[in-house]
């Protein structure tokens, strides 16, 4: 089978699976999760197959597939992956499977829930592998709808507010992006929306045009990342979303933004991107410090993790803004690594919440005595998150800091210093949740269940693997990252 077909099926299969689950009659609701498990499992297998067949030496697009879609408008069903998108594709497939595993307790509207999860997976994968602007935009928006409903129907007490806030923020961004895409199409005069075909013409646009267009698109991307000050939807959405949805939200959804910066910036509108680089770097650093500072004062466990996401994504943005090979590579690794660690974090917080029905840090204490495995994994996650060498978080942040030292010395120093803040809020959280006096209310807290372990341990293993053998991940990315850095260096 041509690999392009496999690539297309990573989108089509979740779509088909989602529709199939929606069509299961009410009496068969219990089959919804097994079907979703099967579908996400096969998608992960396909993603692995693509990873193995990928030629790491080739910086360009691989496994391309082009089918007519709306030729009258110059838009086609064009898919492909390079070293930047393949890891994201894999991450999405991986986390989607774990999210389905972790959704064992969903008891209301199960068919609808798993249908939406699969639609979300299809949309997310679509964003990462689409090579046509309209297709990209369609997938970008497709992600929005299942996410809105997943938060709105299965979320916590303030889900309505959180869902609408998420929706309005992203929608405002999307419209700006659509405006940017249309302007790009009209400004180049090219009769195509194909990113590859459009790239040379887009790069020839005047600085002013590129800046205007990229600003519109970057606005949408910055909301998704999210970059301070556009981040306020994130804590609300995270706190209200059900556990598995938080995993996908933090693990993959945010990466749509940073991935978009890499795809639209250097590869499509390099001059416009260069122009915004100082702002992106500044906001990146602000996000790092501000996110960490906010995390420090949270009393809600999930909010703490949400703000830590803001901080960690700041490193990604700083690395991208640096534009050096090490910076971009660090950003890409950090994107992948944060996907794993944030996934782990939300699964753990979810597990704690299910036992205590509260996420207040003060409601816990000494949990290591009653639930040693769960608590131990929380410790492991925290160390991964604060960048302990030997785990994936270290590789990404270290490369970002070194990679941005040349172009942004001060920012790089601040980012390095901010690791102390990260360590601060995580260790302090650990002291209050895991260690110390046992909170009497938690005296009979059960330890990690098998299902939870099945969802969390693969992430721990992956974090360690990348920490110890970074080449597994870096090898795939390197060639494409080099080509991006070359464009920006020129």
């Amino acid at each position, binding site marked *: 089978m041509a690999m392009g077909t496999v690539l297309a099926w990573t989108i089509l299969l979740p779509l088909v699976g989602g529709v199939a689950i929606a069509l299961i009659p009410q009496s068969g609701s219990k089959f919804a999760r097994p079907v979703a498990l099967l579908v996400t499992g096969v998608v992960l297998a396909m993603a692995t197959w693509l990873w193995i067949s990928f030629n790491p030496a080739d910086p360009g697009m691989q496994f391309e597939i082009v089918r007519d879609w*709306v*030729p009258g*408008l110059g838009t086609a069903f064009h898919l492909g992956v390079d070293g930047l998108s393949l890891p994201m594709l894999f991450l999405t497939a991986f986390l989607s499977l774990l999210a389905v595993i972790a959704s064992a307790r969903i008891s209301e509207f199960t068919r609808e829930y798993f249908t939406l999860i699969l639609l979300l997976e299809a949309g997310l994968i679509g964003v990462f592998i689409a090579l046509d602007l309209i297709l990209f935009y369609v997938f970008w928006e497709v992600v929005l709808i299942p996410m809105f409903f997943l938060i*709105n*129907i299965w979320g916590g007490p303030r889900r309505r507010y959180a869902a609408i806030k998420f929706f309005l923020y992203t929608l405002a961004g999307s419209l700006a992006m659509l405006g940017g895409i249309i302007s790009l199409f009209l400004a180049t005069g090219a009769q195509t929306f194909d990113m590859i075909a459009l790239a040379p013409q887009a790069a020839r646009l005047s600085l002013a045009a590129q800046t205007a267009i990229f600003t519109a698109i970057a606005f949408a991307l910055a909301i998704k990342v999210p970059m301070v000050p556009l981040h306020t939807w994130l804590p609300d959405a995270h706190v209200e979303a059900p556990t598995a949805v938080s995993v996908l939200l933090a693990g993959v959804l945010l990466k749509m933004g940073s991935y978009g910066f890499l795809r639209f910036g250097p590869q499509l509108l390099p001059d416009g991107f260069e122009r915004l680089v100082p702002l992106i770097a500044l906001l990146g650093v602000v996000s790092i410090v501000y996110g960490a500072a906010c995390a420090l004062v949270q009393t809600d466990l999930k909010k703490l993790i949400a703000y830590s996401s803001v901080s960690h994504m700041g490193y990604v943005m700083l690395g991208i803004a640096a534009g050096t090979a090490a910076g971009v590579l660090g950003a890409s690794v950090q994107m992948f690594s944060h996907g794993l660690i944030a996934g782990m974090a939300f699964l753990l917080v979810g597990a704690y919440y299910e036992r205590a029905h509260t996420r207040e840090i003060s409601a816990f204490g000494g949990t290591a005595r009653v639930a040693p495995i769960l608590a131990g994994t929380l410790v492991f996650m925290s160390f991964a998150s604060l960048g302990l060498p030997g785990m994936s978080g270290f590789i990404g942040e270290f490369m970002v800091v070194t990679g941005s030292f040349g172009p942004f010395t001060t920012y790089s120093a601040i980012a390095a210093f901010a690791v102390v803040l990260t360590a601060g809020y995580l260790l302090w959280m650990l002291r209050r949740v895991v260690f110390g006096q046992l909170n009497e209310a938690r005296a009979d807290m059960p330890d990690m269940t098998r299902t939870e372990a099945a969802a969390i341990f693969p992430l721990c293993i992956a974090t360690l693997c990348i920490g110890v053998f970074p080449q597994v991940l870096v090898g795939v990315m390197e060639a494409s990252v080099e080509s991006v850095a070359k464009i920006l260096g020129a």
Partner: protein
Amino acid sequence: MADPTVALTFLAPEIIVALTGALVLVIDLIWIRSTDAPNTPRPWLAYLSIAGLGLAAGAVIGLAGVQTTLFEGIVILDPLSTFFKLLFLAIGMIVLLISVDPLPGFSKWSAEFFALIVWCTLGNMLLASAAELFTIFLCLQLTSLPLIVLIGYAKRDPLSSEASLKYLLLVLVSTAVLLYGMTLVYGALGTSTISEIGKVLAEQRLTPVLALGLVLLLTGFGFKITAVPFQYWVPDVYEGAPSPVTAFLSVGSKFAGFALALRIIVTGLDIPLNWHLIFGVMAALSMTLGNLGALRQTNIKRMLAYSGIAQAGYLLVGLAALSEMGIASLLFYTAAYGFANLLAFTAVIVFANATGSYEISDYAGLARRAPLASFALTVALLSLGGLPLLAGFMAKFYVFLFAAQAGLIWLVAVGVVNSVIALYYYLRVIWQLYVPEGSLDPISVAPRAGLAMSVCAVGVFAIGVFPEPVLRASQMAASALFGG
């Protein structure tokens, strides 16, 4: 120019539709005479009507390649008329399908109801082909008069009677205005066929009489299109009319106005006026006032009425581009909007049959009681709001793209902002369906309504995911209009 007998074969679809209406009435008379229970519902009459419209649709497709004028140029057959005729027939069939269930109190007169819808569809089809002012006038009467009766069909409901009276007054006024305009145009130019008018206009200076005539003409169409400033009748009439009739008005009648306006406007483009600005302002006002009005509504029919005004605005954005592609995007939009709006109304009818209410607050928790109908309404509203993979996104995208290409950036900006406002009130209905807890008794969906929803939903998804066939048809229709 074809000879009259041949010409009649070109009108086969219209003849089939006219006969279908008559046949339904006659069969009903015979049936009532021969039965003891004349009040029993007779859904098969609706099926018969649908079959007739289906046959006519087949005939339209069979004649799709024909491009000619008939009877000294008063009737024109081209891809544009084909496009609209198919659209009107599809709308007619769906409306007939959703008319069967809401009519328990009126089953005694159901034959007349179906026949009037059929004839109204006939009027719409003829309007798509009419190419001469007084033919246009006659066809307009053919669509308006049945509508007056249809709107007042629920005669024991004061709202329905009120709506009917309002529509009657509106028809009277707009007809008078239109007729006056036609007389002035005819007086100024000495011809009434549109092709001749185009030729004369190209050489003529704009005299005050002619200008007044054209303005009055456009005013007459404005009422049908429901664009600002001719929109004030819409909410009351839409609310009062029986729901299937509202559904019919909201798409069939509106598109008939566009079908007609397009021919005349494109012909009159040589007149040195800033048409971009005129239609642009109308579009911006319709979108803004429609959406702002919809924000405050608590009744779903009124909300959809205001949303319909806003949608007329988006359609006008396509017109304001004044380019072939702009018109094509308008045509594409009609198809996308048609399916989505009918889908929304079908779901609204299903809910109203079960709860007896059109209040949005009564939609609380309906998703648990009628998951499929709730899903249908969700899809419809999201499509109206313009989210991708649904028809509405592609439609808005095309319209905005070609308006931007024509340099109407400000109008696109207004349109985009309006899309956000619109999504807000569409989403409010969707929350209401899914979020609050309500009663749990399941609502049964009649198979007919289920079929109508499936057809519309498939249409919404198909146009959203594979827009190419409809896009190609609209481009062909638009290029025919520009003489390509």
